[in-house]
């Protein structure tokens, strides 16, 4: 098991190199001046007469592509992703301030997806064709067919526009000021957790209130997908010979389902969870934009609108990185569940 994880970790740098090369290829399509924005860390550098020419020389942008690639890698390693025109700060700074917000949103989405999705899938399979199964089937179908932007706008309309219960953004104005004050310690960057650590319970509740709508929007699709997959793989597992063996051993139905069938049903569900992860990254852009949630997704949308290449490319790199790491986690989970995978 350990050797499996080490092997996967050794592959990680190779994948990342491939990722940077892909981003670099996109960059080659830019004009040298637009390209400069992905290197320059401060717009003032560009203001002096002839500065652009000097900078092009300095970053080796007139050199052959392999020299350019190496110099690009060098920039990334030194934590320089360029200047974001939209946010008016460096791209690295944009990521630093906004990524925790997205992480918070994603964590609150993924955890319920996995727990609720799998649990309901198992319940549906066990009550195959029963009332619960029929209801869940309809709910899953709705979740599967309603696009995130429709669901998001609908939720925004009902719970903010009409009922005024769940406002957009990340925090109410008062709490936002507290959050940004120097007296407030930022331990994790996750508002809900920091609020609790600072002993501010009402702020925690306010943050939760702001999270409900985006989390629902972001998770409904994946949640429905996982439910359906778990249901069908659980149904298949329940018909397997080893489940009959387990019953013949005199095990209780609870053990048969939760131990023998479910572990096997999780194998396909894990594969889908990996794909879902990528879906969520895409969903983040839409969801954060709808709810005006200050994460990297909304930053990505704003930057794209204004042709802010540096931000788009920098964030693409980050999205790629998250996908690669996410897939690594899924692979390890896969090996933990299925002993047959550990060999390969």
């Amino acid at each position, binding site marked *: 098991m350990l050797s499996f994880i080490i092997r996967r970790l050794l592959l990680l740098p190779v994948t990342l190199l491939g990722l940077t090369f892909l981003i670099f290829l996109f960059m080659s399509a830019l004009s040298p001046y637009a390209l400069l924005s992905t290197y320059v860390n401060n717009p003032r550098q560009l203001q002096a007469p002839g500065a652009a020419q000097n900078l092009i020389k300095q970053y080796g942008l007139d050199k052959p592509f392999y020299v350019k690639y190496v110099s690009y890698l060098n920039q990334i390693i030194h934590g320089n992703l360029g200047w974001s025109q939209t946010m008016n700060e460096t791209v690295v700074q944009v990521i630093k301030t906004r990524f925790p917000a997205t992480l918070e949103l994603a964590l609150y989405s993924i955890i319920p997806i996995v727990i609720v999705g799998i649990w309901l899938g198992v319940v549906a399979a066990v009550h195959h064709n029963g009332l619960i199964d029929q209801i869940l089937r309809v709910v899953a179908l709705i979740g599967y067919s309603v696009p995130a932007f429709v669901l998001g706008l609908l939720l925004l309309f009902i719970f903010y526009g009409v009922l005024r219960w769940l406002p957009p953004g990340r925090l109410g104005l008062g709490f936002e000021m507290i959050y940004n004050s120097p007296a407030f310690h930022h331990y994790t960057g996750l508002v809900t957790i920091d609020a609790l650590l600072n002993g501010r319970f009402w702020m925690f509740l306010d943050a939760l209130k702001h999270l409900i709508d985006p989390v629902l929007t972001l998770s409904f699709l994946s949640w429905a997908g996982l439910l359906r997959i778990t249901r069908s793989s659980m149904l298949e597992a329940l018909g397997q010979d080893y489940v009959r063996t387990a*019953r013949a*051993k*005199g095990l209780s139905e609870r053990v048969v389902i939760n131990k023998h069938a479910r572990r096997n049903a999780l194998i396909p569900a894990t594969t889908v969870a990996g794909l879902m992860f990528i879906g969520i990254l895409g969903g983040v852009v839409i969801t954060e934009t709808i709810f005006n949630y200050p994460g990297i997704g909304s930053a990505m949308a704003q930057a794209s609108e204004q042709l802010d290449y540096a931000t788009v490319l920098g964030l693409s790199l980050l999205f790629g990185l998250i996908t690669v790491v996410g897939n690594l986690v899924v692979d390890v989970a896969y090996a933990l569940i299925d002993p047959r995978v550990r060999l390969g």
Partner: protein
Amino acid sequence: MAQKLLEVKDLHTVFHTEDGTVEAVSGVNFEVYQGETLGIVGESGCGKSVTSLSIMRLLPKQTGEITKGEIIFKGKDILKLPENEMRHVRGKEIAMIFQEPMTALNPVYTAGEQVAEMVELHLGMSKKDAYNYAVEMFRKVGIPMPEKRVYNYPHELSGGLRQRVMIAMALSCNPSLLIADEPTTALDVTIQAQVLDLMRKLLKEYNSSLIMITHDLGVVAEIAQRVAVMYAGQIVEYGDVVTVFKNPSHPYTIGLMKAIPRPDVEVERLISIEGNVPDLFHMPKGCRFNNRCPYAIDKCMEMPPLFEVEPGHLSRCWRYKEIKDLLKKEDGVDVGRG
């Protein structure tokens, strides 16, 4: 005679399908005595596996149903037991070995875990004791290096070893009755013989009874004392092995015997029974074998009862008395083998 352990009386099992309800087992009766082996023989789809699943009450929940009959085990009708009491019978009193050792073991748990969890449940052992017990069971069924093998996953074991794990599992709680559903069918011939030997040895040691379900009369001859031949959901011939093999009195049994290739008799091609087992939706009227029977007469359009050929030897054939003479007239080959 030894004590009666299991008695199946007039068992009827049906399946509810989308195309209607079909009867897979229609009025089967048999007994199993303490320490003896009963062979149930028949082609695929004749209801022998359904019979065994009915005894275990493991029919598919939504489709399978026992509509009539009694299954008396140790003096109690287990069909009337509530599910939670039935669970104590399964595995502890009646254990089962399945046909496919490839799929009958759970791929995501170690072989030892799958034996140990049963021991933990029925014998109330701690996890550690149960594992040690599993190692002992593995040694008993002849698995080499049992201390290592308990930590192997099923995909790391050969078919023969997996079937030994199944046997170890089935015998681990010292059941009074073992049901083996074609335990050797999926194995190589040499492994088959080993597994049969092992089963015979262990049955003796544990003084357990066995119901051996098979389509292979050779296996029955080797391991069973009594045999029930099943056809289309009914028992067509029943008796002790020596008698039935010497004096087969149902055309289907005779057909099965003829179908065993014999090196001492030269034939141009292998002999088989013409046709297939009738599909459950279209049972022939009267005797269910009449459409394939070479000796069918008009009388066969009525369902024959089980006739007593000699004490303890039953046959469901109108012509059970003449069948032996008919055979001799036909080809002179004596199919009876003692």
